[in-house]
Every structure is written in structure tokens, then in C-alpha cells.
């Protein structure tokens, strides 16, 4: 069985990125290789000039959800970008930007945070995913 976990990060809100980073960190701690493919707003959130900015929450969070999310951020929860950095130091975590989304957003790799390892197309993503699971967030 292929141990590799592949994640497609489409959404760019902080709650979805936080949930994704938790999945990535857990897989890295268990020694599973992780491949991440950044598309659309997920990719946009990895721009170097705005990775630490407030990316908002999914609409269903509402006011109460925002209060709970902000409280967790103040106590014991690592920011998703920091959790991804730790996961990369710990295990085999490869982060690739979708080339079509790079074109759409008119980005160059130098516009992206160093967390992003490279740019690839969807065929490369599927080949690297192998027989492993693919998660879309």
C-alpha cells in the first residue's frame, strides 16, 4: 500500500488551511510522505507578502466560530504556516504550486513563501500521488 498522502489545497481561508496543516503535521509525525498541490485561493494564501495576513474564515464559521477560532489561535494552536514549517522540518513534505493557478493569479515562484518547493502541472501531481489517498480541501 502506498503510504503517501496527497492534499489539494484549493481554499484560502485560515480555518481550512489550519485543518489542512493539522492533517499534514499528523502524517509527517507518523512518518508518511505528504504531497501538497496548491490551487486557486489556497495558492494565493502562500504569497510571501500575505502568508501571515488574516485570510478570513469560511462563511459557515459565523461570529461565534470566529471568536472560537481566534481564541484557539491565542492559546496552544500554531498558525497553519508554522505548523507546515515544523512538518517540513520533521518529515517528507513537498509543496507544489499548480502551474495553471500560477498563470491565473499572475504569480512567479519568487512571489511565493519559501514553504513552496516548486511548480508543477496536474499530471505530475497524479504521478507523484501514486496509489495513495488524495484529500481535497
Amino acid at each position, binding site marked *: 500500500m502506498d503510504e503517501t498522502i496527497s492534499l489539494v489545497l484549493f481554499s484560502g481561508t485560515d480555518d481550512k488551511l489550519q485543518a489542512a496543516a*493539522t492533517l499534514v503535521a499528523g502524517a509527517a*509525525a*507518523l512518518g508518511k510522505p505528504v504531497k501538497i498541490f496548491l490551487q486557486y485561493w489556497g495558492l494565493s494564501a502562500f504569497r510571501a507578502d500575505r502568508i501571515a495576513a488574516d485570510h478570513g474564515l469560511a462563511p459557515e464559521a459565523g461570529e461565534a466560530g470566529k471568536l472560537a477560532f481566534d481564541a484557539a489561535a491565542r*492559546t496552544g*494552536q500554531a498558525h497553519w504556516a508554522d*505548523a507546515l514549517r515544523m512538518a517540513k522540518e*520533521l518529515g517528507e513534505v513537498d509543496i507544489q504550486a499548480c502551474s495553471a493557478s500560477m498563470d491565473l493569479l499572475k504569480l512567479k515562484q519568487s512571489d511565493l513563501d519559501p514553504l513552496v518547493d516548486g511548480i508543477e502541472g496536474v499530471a505530475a501531481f497524479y504521478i507523484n500521488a501514486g496509489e495513495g489517498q488524495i484529500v481535497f480541501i
Partner: protein
Amino acid sequence: MGNLDIKLKVDASGLSCPLPILKAAQGVKTIAPGELMEVIATDPGSVKDFAAWAGSTGNALVESDSADGKYRFVFRHK
């Protein structure tokens, strides 16, 4: 208890998932095979998480207990 030769102590108190398991996975890399690491956590989810982590990575859980909302785990580096 108390007579184990703990090589590394990792305090993950107050941290939420996935930080306790990340800290443990980072910590175990800094000790030699056969040496012991103690982890303290307050996240109730860490009980199942660390059992799964030990089973999956081969770092044996040699001792665990809990008191006053704190969970203590001792692992032997594979």
C-alpha cells in the same frame, strides 16, 4: 515510576493537536535508539494519538498515566 532513566522531557502542556505529536516526533529524533523520552500533554486527544503514533513509528510506549488533567507518556526510541 520514577526509576526510569529519562533522556529527554517534552512538555506539550496547553498545546492542541497536532502540536503534542509534532513535538514528540521532533524530540525522539534527538535521542539515541533505546533511550527514553517523556512527554507531558493536556490535550485529551493525545491519549489515542500517542498510542497510534507509537504503533505506527515503532517507538514503544513503555509507560503512561494521567493525573489532574495531565497525561504522561514514556516512549523508548526505536
